[in-house]
């Protein structure tokens, strides 16, 4: 599980500390959603354009770690904690992420169902589904989503995001 490559050079920019996700047994995250957020933002330090991602996982501690990593990789991240929540935010037009990184197993709506709902609403949003369960890979990839099996390295994550943003080819 040691990364094959250093991730230092993957970090595109630096940004201020991400707001921490406070515990919430219902999975609601109104406080974290940036209403009407544009997918393109500039980094305060470098002035570089920050790409907007959404991250969905019901494990709040893991979300906090994700936020640290994605921040260091230079992305603007909108966290959510369940499948139905991200679907609702996208459908309502409150957020416009370019890529969504989604856990598969969540209490109310699983990642694949949420991904399909989002794809039906906006086919332009690329979705990465991350799961500890490799048996779902066969359902994820044919549906046109990117699959990442947990645990994965920061390099793998970065690579998957770039692929989703069509930056690697």
């Amino acid at each position, binding site marked *: *599980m040691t*990364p094959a490559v*250093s*991730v*230092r050079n993957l*970090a595109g920019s630096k940004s201020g500390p991400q707001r921490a996700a*406070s*515990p*919430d*047994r*219902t999975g609601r995250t109104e406080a974290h959603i940036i209403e009407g957020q544009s997918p393109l933002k500039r980094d305060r330090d470098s002035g570089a354009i920050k790409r907007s991602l959404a991250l969905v996982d*019901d*494990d709040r*501690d*893991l979300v*906090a*770690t*994700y936020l*640290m*990593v994605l921040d*260091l990789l230079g992305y603007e991240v909108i966290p959510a904690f*369940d499948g139905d929540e991200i679907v609702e935010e996208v459908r309502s037009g409150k957020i416009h992420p370019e890529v969504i990184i989604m856990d598969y*197993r*969540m*209490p*109310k709506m*699983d990642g694949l169902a949420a991904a399909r709902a989002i794809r039906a609403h906006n086919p332009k949003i690329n979705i990465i589904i991350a799961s*500890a*369960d490799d048996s779902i890979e066969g359902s994820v990839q044919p549906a046109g989503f990117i699959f990442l099996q*947990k*645990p*994965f*390295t*920061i390099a793998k994550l970065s690579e998957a995001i770039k692929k989703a943003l069509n930056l690697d080819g």
Partner: protein
Amino acid sequence: MRGENQNPPLGTTTVLRGKHTSTTRMQTLARALQRLDICEQATGTLELVTLDSVKNMIADAAKGRSIRVRFITEINAEDILACEELMNIAEVRHLDGVKGGFVVTEGEYFASTMFEDSSAQAIHSDVKPIVEHQQYLFETLWGIAVPAKERLQELREGTLHSRIEVIHNPTEIQRMFLELVGSARTEVLFLFPTPNAFRREETLGVIDTLEAKAASGVRIRVLLPADERLERRIRERRSGSMTHIDYRTIQRPMVHGTVTILIVDGQISFVLEQKNDAQEIFVQAIGLATYSSSKSNVLSNVLFFETLWHERELREKEAAARIEVEKTHRRSQLLQDILTHDMRNYLQSLLFDVEGIRDLARDENFVRKRAVAMLKTLERSNTLIERARKLDKIVAPGHFVNLLQTDVGESLDRSLSLVESANPGRKIVISPPTIASASGALAMADELLDEVFVNVLANAVKYTDASTEDGKVPIEVAVKSSDERRLAEEGLVQFGMPYQGSERTKYWQISIADHGTGIPDEMKGTVFRRYLETAKGIGLGLSIVHALVVDRYGGALRITDRVKGDYKQGAKVEIWLKRSS
């Protein structure tokens, strides 16, 4: 009649009348030295046991002179007592239609009409060929006669005098039906064809009579096809009664759904055919009835009942075995799930942190933060393993459970201390300040009861915003008395708590309400059930609570809102534990 033979007579054959009859009979009995065989018609036997002189003479032969005394007679239901008396002094056998009577000894033959009748006539002979002929005749009859013991048993079982009767008058049917139920001494078997049949007969007071019978030690077994309403009614009856009727529910009986079968003491069957099941009144619903004390009839009804009863028993056992298999399967799935899902999530976190420190660390503060995060992840993974181990132990098949008298208040106190020490900076504020209501609340549980309260309280802490009220965690606790009927009314049997026995079980109801973020209605049904359904994204803490309260302690569990209708005001966990008497 004297022998006219010119040769010296080998003996004499005499025809006797009047008083000589009884004198000669007594002398014949008295002279017997080796054998005394008597064949007597039923009335003669009755007379014999009332005549002490004759009875004593036979007894003297049997006991005083150690002669084998054999007696053939016709034994009928009204002769049972006389026959039993006779059996004390002679070997007795039954033969149908014995007429008159005779006595044969080793050297004499005596035949008479009646014992004490002045007009009686008799023949006495000591002529050897005549005596031998009569001995042969007696042996032949003895060979075909039935031992008195067997005959008496048949009479007692009514197999010879069975009655089969079809009754058409509904009022008479009702009278006989109630009389039969009331006459049961050892056992009642009842097969109802429809839920309505049970209801009608309950209205008639039959079930009350059965409960009274059960209370006096009569074994009552009832088979019935129950709908939801009837199942509820039976539960109510069981919970309200101190006595025990064994109920088993069946699909519609295999024959047809119109016949009620009642079998009393294994000797009488009463089969009621209903003509209109929709009628509420017994006499309006019933068509005709067949009363039978015929052994074969009763036995076939008993056999039918027992077949259905045991089939149901087997199905219940099969269902229980299937539940055990499913439980084992769920257990292994849960462990696999923990390994593949939860542990990999923790590894994911650790991997990001390690990589972050190695490749992205900007300063010492960053490293310290990641190290703290890693420690937290390690602690969480350790807690998960510990909980999985605990849950696995609780739900392991064949795990021996020894429930003891356990003090609920003391367990709550210990749990509070444990949760507070595990959450520095958080202060649990119990309302009311002391759990006075829990004082003296003794429940059937064990040392793992602390685990229940620790998990519930820890959840309250976890989901109560730490940034408000200086990290205080307000919790309202109440302990009150409850019982099985109230639980049935609340519909809590759905949590898998079966009615055990018929006595109404008493419970302690413990409510723990927090001011946390609450649980939306759609999630209330799953928070306890990760173990049961490998539910997605749910921790193990409340599954442990469920496994302990419901499976281990035979209690019940429910989650509601602290403020009814507004889940955001906090959650309320209600726990029912059986009271220790």
